């Protein structure tokens, strides 16, 4: 196991008087690939916001390794189509230092931005307006922007939402490649367990205000998943690809 990047100790999170998550305890270490899995409204984004420091814990502690850097990748819809910015302009935002005041981009900033764009396969799109790119291309631009921060932890909030299957597959392949090449810690937020199951080394299952976290081997089995979701769940392997399903008499649903 690598060095711990962030430790979450008995944390409760919420807004106002409402508690969204309670008693969350987990630690994210170097080189791990985490899948944060749960339905909409289960608290995944709240935990992401807490990791970014945007939501303060109601109780407990979140302890970061000193000088740890986060590369945040939102859903591509987070950026307004009104913005007249090129793909390169967006990626360069990851090189902003000194709080953005009196910052001027250096030749090194541009080199790093092009390098990151090359890594995610969009170097040829650098001067195109972001709003004119396809969904998959936009997501790659946002990934490049996160990579250019040279992160210790890459935090991706449902990056494959609304993408077609081939594009979703390509993004997941890219993430696996980045994880393998750079040994960066990845947190991948999704509501699709099957998607996380095929890339993650660790899972955090969000269910009814709780988070069950651990290595994928210990969580991705029928007994554990059925107990967590209180419904019969089966795990299958098809051509080396894991598929998680709810067992149903008449039909099966993708969990």
């Amino acid at each position: 196991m690598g060095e711990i990047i962030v430790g979450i100790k008995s944390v409760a999170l919420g807004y106002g008087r409402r508690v969204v998550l309670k008693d969350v305890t987990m630690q994210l270490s170097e080189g791990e690939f985490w899948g944060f899995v749960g339905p909409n409204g289960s608290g995944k984004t709240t935990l992401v916001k807490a990791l970014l420091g945007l939501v303060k814990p109601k109780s407990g502690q979140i302890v970061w390794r000193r000088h740890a850097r986060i590369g945040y990748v939102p859903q591509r819809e987070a950026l307004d189509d009104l913005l007249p910015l090129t793909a390169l302009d967006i990626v360069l935002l990851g090189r902003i230092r000194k709080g953005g005041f009196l910052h001027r981009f250096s030749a090194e900033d541009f080199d790093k931005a092009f390098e990151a764009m090359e890594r995610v396969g969009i170097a040829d799109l650098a001067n195109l307006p972001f709003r004119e790119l396809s969904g998959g291309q936009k997501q790659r631009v946002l990934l490049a922007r996160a990579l250019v921060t040279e992160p210790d932890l890459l935090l991706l909030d449902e990056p494959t939402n609304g993408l077609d299957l081939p594009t979703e597959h390509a993004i997941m392949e890219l993430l696996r490649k980045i994880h393998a090449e750079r040994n960066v810690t990845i947190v991948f937020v999704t509501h699709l367990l099957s998607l996380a199951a095929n890339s993650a080394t660790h899972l955090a299952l969000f269910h009814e205000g709780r988070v069950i976290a651990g290595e994928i081997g210990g969580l991705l089995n029928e007994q554990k998943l059925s107990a967590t979701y209180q419904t019969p769940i089966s795990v299958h392997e098809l051509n080396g690809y894991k598929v998680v399903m709810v067992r149903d008499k008449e039909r099966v649903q993708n969990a």
Partner: protein
Amino acid sequence: MLEMLKHDFLRHALGAAIIAGASLSFVGVYVILRRIVFVGAALAQLGAAGVGLALLTGFSPLLGGAVAVLAGALGFVAMPQQERTVSRESLLGAAYALASALALLFVALSPVGEAHISALLFGDLLAVGHGDMELLAAACLLVVVVHLAAYHAFVAVTVDPTFAHSVGIKERWVNLLFYLSLGALIGACIRAIGALVVFAFLVLPPIAGLIWARNLKVAFAVAIAIASISAIFGLWLSFAHDLPAGPSVVAVCGGLTFLAVVTKWLANFKLH
């Protein structure tokens, strides 16, 4: 047109309109991108109410307008981010309606009376003196310098506040600086060009800039150019046809923006 420049008061009016128009349209690009047009409208009306109150109480109208706008900007920053029962938009609407009514009431009650109501809405460009113009230029220059120094912070927070936070940009402070600069600019311009012209410059040229530009710097340049051309031709129209200055400038500005929108639509139509 050159005939117009022979008169001192028209040269001052032209200078003030160009300086105010260029600065407001520059900052207005962010107003459109952040989708806070109603904030601009509400602040402009608060400025008018401040000017009205100053006329009523005998204080400096410039100071009255500036204080009211800055207080409004601070109030907007202090509004809770989480909308529960009443949205921020609704509160801004309420502030806009109340400020508009108060502005008219204050002026109607003041010794100078209703003669000033038109000046409150459309400003008093032709009354801008040499000292007024220098003060306006200094205030606008200060705001533009702040915007240039904080350019990347403003862009990052406008584009994606969560990402900006993740790279160490203090979103709350950047927003505070942005709204204070917006308030200061509106406060400085309100006496000279009035609430409606301030609002027109904040919105119309940036729309044209953002419709045509493929990058942000071009959007700023187009917006500033349209505001400046509107100021020049609007004042010339006013001088040549004996029309009120403020509405003439707004009419030209609206016409140019409409032209930009139509030509863009036609260009897209040809492409497809």
